[in-house]
């Protein structure tokens, strides 16, 4: 019975938020009606995404739930969607964060609710689309579509200077999209296809002008690196975080760009990616430390979260361009963990902002006595973020750092591990400045209301998820590993099969 919706499940996932958006736009803007429509829609789409892992065939190779229909004859654009172990959990993550985003906006968005929720839902469709598209033109359409509602909403709902931040966002993300489009079209001109599988095969077996291919690959990389963002292209992130509505800031960074790197940059151009790998590893490690150092000195908690994100996402970039199987699996897992943790932290900080109307860290202090639940959840989420074992952040972090050390480069791995210290510094300091110490007089006048039912209803599952992901990562990593195909088998996989040979050779190395 359930199997019968397999062929259309991805289409449903794409259409449900869009239908919700239309419904919001048509329905009257009365009370919290748009909120409720958006909430029901996002819950609905989340349930639909859960169908995917439930019916995913772990052993099978290739794409599942695949649909491949001609859409536009000329140019030959296909409606080609499908998922594998790589994209499976990203779709679920987007589905999970959608209702979280609606609840984060519940009290924060008071005006023009219709526009907000309609655009928010369009954004959901776009993000789903990025993760399921297997036709490059389709993918590009969703990629662009994901930027538009974001820019508009930043401009409309900015805290201080929305239009300026929106402009910055626009410049940083739309401009690199243009070369991406040109690169996609160049590929099409050469091969007559936008199809991912076909292109991957063609790029591996057909001769292309080498330098042109380099530029094409670079155009792909550049667009993705800005979106992640990779140091030094992170200029838009802090402004976006401090101006964008919480629900959108929660999803703007990270997973879209990182997934695209894995699938479309390295997936299509393994040789070109390998050539640039050492540069990206260096940038990633710089990003880890740079982001952490800047997070230390921020005075606004959204900006702090922005630089913390730069630091954490750079670690995943390090995993990706280490080009090892273990690193990729750990990296994908870390993206999921980061999504969950960031969701929880953004929700909590948003809840504080709604209550106390301030984003300056210095105006807080001593909240733990008044808001014990918020303090507890915030501490747990912070600990997850700084990689405390048995919480979800540790698994990915340890996997990435250890495999970088063992297989890629010891120096860079050691440098990146310093991020572990700095991460604890800025997060614990943030916790202390928000929640501990004597109560700050500037917030004492506000009525203290601890987290209400709606917030608890979202945060509690997220926190439980952090525990489960920390203790039983295999529930996720088993499927992730079926979809992870780094360009060449890493040395470590061979050496793990013959560990004795390694240790036998080491004394010599040790005495050198």
């Amino acid at each position, binding site marked *: 019975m359930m199997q019968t919706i397999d062929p259309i499940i991805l289409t449903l996932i794409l259409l449900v938020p869009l239908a919700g958006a239309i419904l919001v736009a048509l329905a009257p803007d009365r009370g919290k009606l748009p909120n409720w429509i958006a909430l029901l829609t996002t819950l609905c789409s989340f349930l639909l995404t859960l169908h995917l892992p439930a019916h995913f065939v772990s052993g099978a190779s290739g794409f599942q739930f695949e649909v491949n229909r001609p859409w536009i004859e000329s140019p030959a654009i296909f409606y080609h969607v499908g998922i594998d172990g790589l994209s499976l959990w990203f779709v679920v993550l987007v589905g999970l964060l959608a209702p979280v985003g609606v609840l984060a906006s519940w009290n924060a968005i008071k005006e023009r609710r219709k526009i907000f929720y309609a655009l928010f839902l369009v954004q959901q469709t776009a993000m789903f689309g990025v993760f399921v598209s297997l036709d490059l033109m389709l993918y590009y359409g969703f990629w662009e579509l994901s930027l538009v509602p974001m820019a508009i909403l930043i401009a409309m709902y900015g805290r201080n200077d929305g239009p300026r931040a929106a402009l910055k966002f626009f410049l940083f993300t739309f401009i690199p999209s243009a070369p991406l489009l040109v690169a996609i079209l160049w590929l099409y001109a050469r091969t007559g296809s936008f199809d991912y599988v076909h292109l991957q095969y063609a790029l591996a077996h057909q001769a292309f002008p080498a330098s042109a291919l380099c530029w094409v690959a670079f155009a792909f990389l550049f667009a993705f690196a800005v979106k992640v963002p990779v140091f030094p292209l992170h200029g838009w992130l802090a402004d976006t975080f401090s101006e964008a509505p919480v629900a959108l800031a929660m999803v703007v960074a990270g997973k879209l760009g990182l997934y695209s790197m894995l699938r479309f940059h390295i997936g299509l151009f393994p040789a070109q990616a390998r050539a640039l790998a050492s540069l990206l590893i260096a940038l990633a490690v710089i990003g880890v430390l740079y982001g952490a150092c800047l997070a230390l000195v921020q005075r606004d908690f959204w900006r702090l979260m922005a630089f913390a994100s730069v630091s954490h996402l750079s670690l995943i970039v390090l995993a990706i361009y280490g080009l090892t199987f273990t690193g990729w699996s750990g990296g994908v897992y870390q993206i999921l963990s980061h999504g969950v943790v960031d969701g929880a932290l953004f929700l909590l900080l948003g809840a504080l902002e709604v209550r106390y109307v301030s984003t300056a860290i210095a105006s807080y202090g001593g909240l733990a006595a008044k808001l014990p639940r918020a303090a507890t959840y915030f501490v747990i989420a912070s600990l997850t973020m700084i990689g405390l074992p048995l919480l979800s952040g540790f698994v990915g972090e340890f996997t990435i750092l250890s495999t970088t050390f063992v297989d890629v480069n010891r120096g860079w791995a050691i440098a990146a591990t310093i991020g572990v210290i700095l991460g604890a510094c800025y997060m614990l300091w943030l916790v202390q400045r928000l929640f501990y110490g004597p109560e700050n007089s500037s917030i004492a006048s506000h009525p203290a209301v601890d987290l209400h039912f709606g917030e608890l209803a979202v945060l509690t599952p997220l926190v439980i998820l952090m525990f489960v992901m920390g203790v039983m990562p295999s529930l996720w990593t088993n499927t992730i590993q079926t979809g992870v195909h780094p360009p060449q088998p890493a040395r470590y996989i061979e050496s793990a099969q013959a560990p004795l040979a390694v240790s036998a050779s080491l004394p010599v190395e*040790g005495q050198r």
Partner: protein
Amino acid sequence: MNAPLHLWLIPLLPFAGFLVNGILGARLPKWLVTTVALLAPLGAFAVVLVRAAGFLGAAAAVAAPITETCPSAWISIGALHIDFSLVLDQLSLVMLLIITGVGLLIHIYSVGYMDDDPGYWRYFSYLNLFLFFMTTLVLAGNVLLLFVGWEGVGLASYLLIGFWYQKTSAADAGKKAFIANRIGDFGFLIGIFLLLANFGTLTFSEIAAKLASNPAWTGGILTATALCLLVGATGKSAQLPLYIWLPDAMEGPTPVSALIHAATMVTAGVYMIARTHFLFDRSPFALGVVAVVGAATALFAATMGLVQNDIKRVLAYSTISQLGYMFLGCGVAAYSAAVFHLMTHAFFKALLFLAAGSVIHAMGGEQDMRRMGGLRKKIPVTFWTMTAAVIAICGIWPFAGFFSKDAILYAAFVHGVSGEILWSVGFVTALLTALYMFRLWYMTFLGESRSPDVHPHESPWSMLGPLVVLALLSLGGGWIGIERFAEFLAPVTGHNAAVSSVPHLELWLSVLAVAVALEGWLIADKYYRRKPERPAALVAAMPGVYKLLVNKYYVDEIYNFVFVKPLLALSRWVLEGFIDWVVLGGLAWLLGGVATLAGAILQRWQSGNLRSYAAWLAAGAAAVLLFAVVPFLLSSHGIDLHWAGH
């Protein structure tokens, strides 16, 4: 052997206690919170006792380690495979007996001590959480699971130091402890990576087996690995140079200081070195560093302990100093002696803290010894139990500290020429130990009361009971003797090869050690009882030295000046101010010649006119199609888009 009680019960019982009290504690009646909180360590202790009976029942030589592995792996990613595996052997058994036994006593004591605190339930849930992680740490069958416990006890310590979080000093101290430990953990992590790179596994038994099959493999990468692990150990066990967090950790409730910051958690570094001794044994250099760090810390901390006036801070420096002895023991490969001292220290140091807590309780929260005095008659049980602990820590026969400290000093002395230097450092430290401990004893209990308006009262029996039990252990805990103890641990730590050619050397060294301890007592007696004006005169004679000591050698200030301030300045002015704003921001706006153009277009968005957004979307889509169609049309007519250059 049939296993009626699973090992995993030992950590999971406290974890259950943590969950129940942590989630429901605020709503449960107090007696129920207490019951849950006490059942957790009681259950764990009972399980440990049953397993210990099984272990001791078997002939000591054949008692093989018991391993329990969770059928599904914890992390299984690519080449990385980590199990949840628990191993019970002689070493972990000793540790478990200390942790759950002393832990149980301190839980009982806390019922009285924390009685009127509004965070009662929260306190006990953290305490149970600590036991969960600490038992995980000592039962772990691989390095990463040990690291889980390692980080976890750090978390519990962070939460409990900052238990009274409204106090800025407490919140600061918690954060400082966590970060200092993180710096150590950085080294530990690198050590784990090195193990993974060179052994391909993190399981202790497999690493040991690989080393055993490669007897010629010494030094080199093994030294690096051992030193990295040592960095981790110095963080957790408060050794030079990362000891700075422990004195501040006294901000936490006193029973926490007793359990976490004296008896158990801070000894994790010693345990870790003993657990991975097969690695350290292959690197004489790393062992030497361990010994030097230990001896230096022992002496250094003892000097600072001499001038402290806060009763808990004296004990904190004393803990650092005693941990230094344990490191010294490890460094001369006398692991069983180090663990022996770990055990006796757990008894008498927990007792010292709990008795100090009883004093503070009696004095209505006063911690400054200058306002105490004359408490001997007022709180006799506390006085007598504390006296037992003071004699024990000074290493005076027949108290427990004598046997264990003696074992370490002897092992150091017979460790060659460098060993004799190390021994002499330990010897001087023993003098200082007796001096500052009896100083504490005199200032607190003897003489006249210096706070006449305070009316001290003896603590309730829930607090005195644990004191009495610990006093008995401080007296008799060492009578088992190092020979039997070392023999018991031999399957894990190997045989202690310390033999001397000089007859009666051990006896002479013991006599010397006791003599020096008594000398310390005599000096304290002279300065703090017979001639109480002398200390002030001494301070006046050497103002520089006194200032240096009382300011703790300015180490906190130096760290702040050398590390913290430059890092913040670098981040704020160079990275953020210059690179982020000037360089990157400037570049971005240079590129934004386009920006002004786009900005003009974006002006329309501000209007909030939905129709213009829609128009924009449509225009964008049209542009995409145009771009897509044109090249296709061109190429389908045989015109190819050529790229410049090849």
